[in-house]
């Protein structure tokens, strides 16, 4: 059924797809219409003209013959013959004259019966004209007719010219001259045939010409389209060959100009990216060494703080802690910078998500204790994928620490589920949550839910941004669900190998227990 629909739809598809088909079809249709109308007019006019000429000719002929017949009838010596005999004689004379050149046959309605030319059937005279003659309102009447013969000749179309003979004393006798139209018919047929032949020649010719014209017009357009496609495919050096100064040449020139500008812009951006990458690399190296020295010095002071007076001891504590923060911030900034420059690379290895998640969650036990939070795990026996373990660890660590920090002491549940194509990890907390408006902002850089919150974990606001980038680098997803006062759930979905297409996740982003907050049991 759909096959049939596809077939039926084919013409409309061709129509919309091909400019040349549209041009050709439109012009051929127009040509056909024009030619059809013209031809019809031609044939109609010709027919009418021929018919009128024939009628005039026939009427004048009939009139002349009728006049001579009338005078012949007047001269009749009624002593020697009856009206009927005289009429028959006249008819014969007129018929003989009429047979010269096959111009007409004759029928006379005599007192006794119809007198006809040899071989002519009286049905050749239609009733309509017999009646008309009887009204005697004018001298001559005409009507077309079909001439029927009794001697085996084929019927042919003709013209009847009717008049009347007056015999003194005995009445009015209608006379019908039956003119054949054979020759006229032939002429008309020739005209019609010529018209058709001309059409048969004209239409294909027009189609061909229009097709050639359309190709000519379309060639530059097609060339422009092909050049654009090649450029879009990455071949940035493609240009159209342009000749002439008309609109099409203008199109070509404009296209080439656009390609030049695009190429230049792309080059600029690539250079910029290179510069940025180099910068990241240089900064990374330059900063790390002095930072290491400072860090070590701070560690030494921190280890010896018991030997200091309270003020100095406190100073060394703050120094130690804030240097740790500084280091994390620097690392995160450099990571983000690498993502921005497109320089982030995956170091892929076989990863057991069940084991990785368990390890990362357990690593946060101390933090959870300090908040009075219970960490719950629901992981399968194993869930192996190919991924970058360092990045995945970072994501999980960030999600878990966020959950503990914002969880308000309520349970945090971490669940892992795998299917054939992907592995999903959800981290559910029952704390502050967030509103729908905040859902978009969560992953933005340096965004914090509540700037006045005491930050013990020492985050920079970049954690989720980096987590999102890390997830996307694998071709995976990171989704957030939250409700004010109802907690939040973050879901990480990773394909079994980076770059494998992801269509569904083994776990839902919206938690099952959407309802009241859990209380610590």
């Amino acid at each position, binding site marked *: 059924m759909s096959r049939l629909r596809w077939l039926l739809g084919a013409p409309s598809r061709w129509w919309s797809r091909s400019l040349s088909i549209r041009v050709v079809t439109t012009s051929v249709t127009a040509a056909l219409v024009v030619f059809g109308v013209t031809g019809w007019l031609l044939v109609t006019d010709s027919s009418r003209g021929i018919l009128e000429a024939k009628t005039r000719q026939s009427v004048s002929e009939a009139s002349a013959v009728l006049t001579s017949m009338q005078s012949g009838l007047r001269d009749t010596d009624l002593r020697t013959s009856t009206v009927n005999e005289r009429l028959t004689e006249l008819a014969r004379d007129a018929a003989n004259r009429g047979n010269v050149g096959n111009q007409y046959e004759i029928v006379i309605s005599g007192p006794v019966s119809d007198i006809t030319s040899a071989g002519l059937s009286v049905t050749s005279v239609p009733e309509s004209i017999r009646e008309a003659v009887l009204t005697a309102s004018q001298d001559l009447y005409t009507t077309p007719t079909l001439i029927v013969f009794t001697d085996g000749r084929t019927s042919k179309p003709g013209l009847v010219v009717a008049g009347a003979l007056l015999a003194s004393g005995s009445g009015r006798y209608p006379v019908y001259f039956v003119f054949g139209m054979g020759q006229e018919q032939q002429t008309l047929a020739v005209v019609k045939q010529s018209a058709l032949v001309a059409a048969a020649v004209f239409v294909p010719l027009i189609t061909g010409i229009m097709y050639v014209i359309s190709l000519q017009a379309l060639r530059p357009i097609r060339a422009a389209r092909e050049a654009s496609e090649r450029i879009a495919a990455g071949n940035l050096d493609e240009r159209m060959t342009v000749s002439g100064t008309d609109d099409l040449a203008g199109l070509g020139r404009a296209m080439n100009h656009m390609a030049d500008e695009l190429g230049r812009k792309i080059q600029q951006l690539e250079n910029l990216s290179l510069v940025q990458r180099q910068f990241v*690399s240089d900064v990374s190296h330059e900063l790390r060494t002095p930072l290491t020295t400072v*860090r070590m010095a701070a560690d030494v002071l921190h280890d010896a703080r018991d030997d200091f007076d309270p003020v100095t001891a406190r100073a060394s504590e703050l120094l130690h802690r804030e240097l740790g923060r500084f280091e994390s911030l620097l690392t995160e900034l450099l990571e983000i910078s690498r993502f921005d420059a497109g320089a982030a690379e995956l170091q892929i290895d076989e990863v057991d998500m069940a084991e990785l998640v368990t390890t990362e969650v357990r690593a946060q036990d101390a933090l959870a204790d300090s908040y009075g939070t219970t960490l719950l795990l629901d992981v399968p026996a194993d869930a192996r994928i190919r991924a970058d373990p360092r990045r995945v660890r970072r994501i999980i660590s960030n999600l878990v620490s966020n959950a503990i920090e914002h969880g308000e002491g309520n349970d945090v549940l971490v669940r892992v589920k795998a299917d054939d194509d992907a592995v999903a990890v959800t981290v559910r907390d029952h704390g502050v949550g967030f509103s729908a408006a905040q859902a978009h902002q969560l992953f933005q850089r340096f965004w914090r839910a509540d700037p006045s919150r005491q930050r013990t974990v020492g985050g920079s606001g970049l954690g989720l941004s980096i987590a999102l980038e890390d997830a996307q680098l694998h071709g995976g997803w990171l989704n957030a669900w939250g409700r004010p006062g109802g907690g939040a759930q973050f879901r990480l979905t990773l394909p079994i190998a980076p770059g494998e297409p992801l269509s569904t996740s083994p776990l839902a982003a919206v938690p099952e227990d959407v309802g009241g907050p859990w209380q610590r049991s």
Partner: protein
Amino acid sequence: MSPMTAGRILVVDDDAALAEMLQIVLEASGFDASWVGRGDEALAEFRRSKPDLVLLDLMLPGRDGVDVCRDLRAESDVPIVMLTAKSDTLDVVAGLEAGADDYVAKPFKTQELLARVKTRLRRNARPDEDPSTLRIGDIVIDVDAHTVHRGSEPISLTPLEFELLLALARKPRQAFTRELLLQEVWGYRHPGDTRLVNVHVQRLRSKIEADPERPEIIVTVRGIGYRAGTPAAP
């Protein structure tokens, strides 16, 4: 008579401040520390001071750190720990393949560095239940003497390589994950870079296997890690 030290350590780094800080920290932990600031002077200083461990920065003037590592490894089995500023690039792998045993990424926590150093210098305490010789395939490991033979031919391994082989040989039927090997051989408590394991297994195989393309001594277990091969009939 020189005082008992925990060991002698050579620091090869071009940053004077960092080198000084390292020496302070190492000496506070009971080590003897010396320093050289250029790659092309490293080998000479190594020969002169004969350290028990080398801390080697990869970015050095005069001669590249990876090349210095190769030079040192060619001469000695001394443990080499790289100090890297770039933790996730090819430099780490290049250094490991040139013979380094471990690496520490800057900036590092002092405790972390010291822990790595101590692990590498650890005199292997043999649990009593260890047999004095172990066999894998046609290899004989003399645990006390730290030697490995194939038949009568000795095979020379660095201390790290020896420990790696030993860890596998002690439990011949067990498949070790890379994380487990990192813990046992390198002393990592937290998950680390499993590339360390991959590179060193390759190095070990290239030395110890009759045909490194078809390993029989150290067998890969797909999806898990590595396992010691079965001992041949004695």
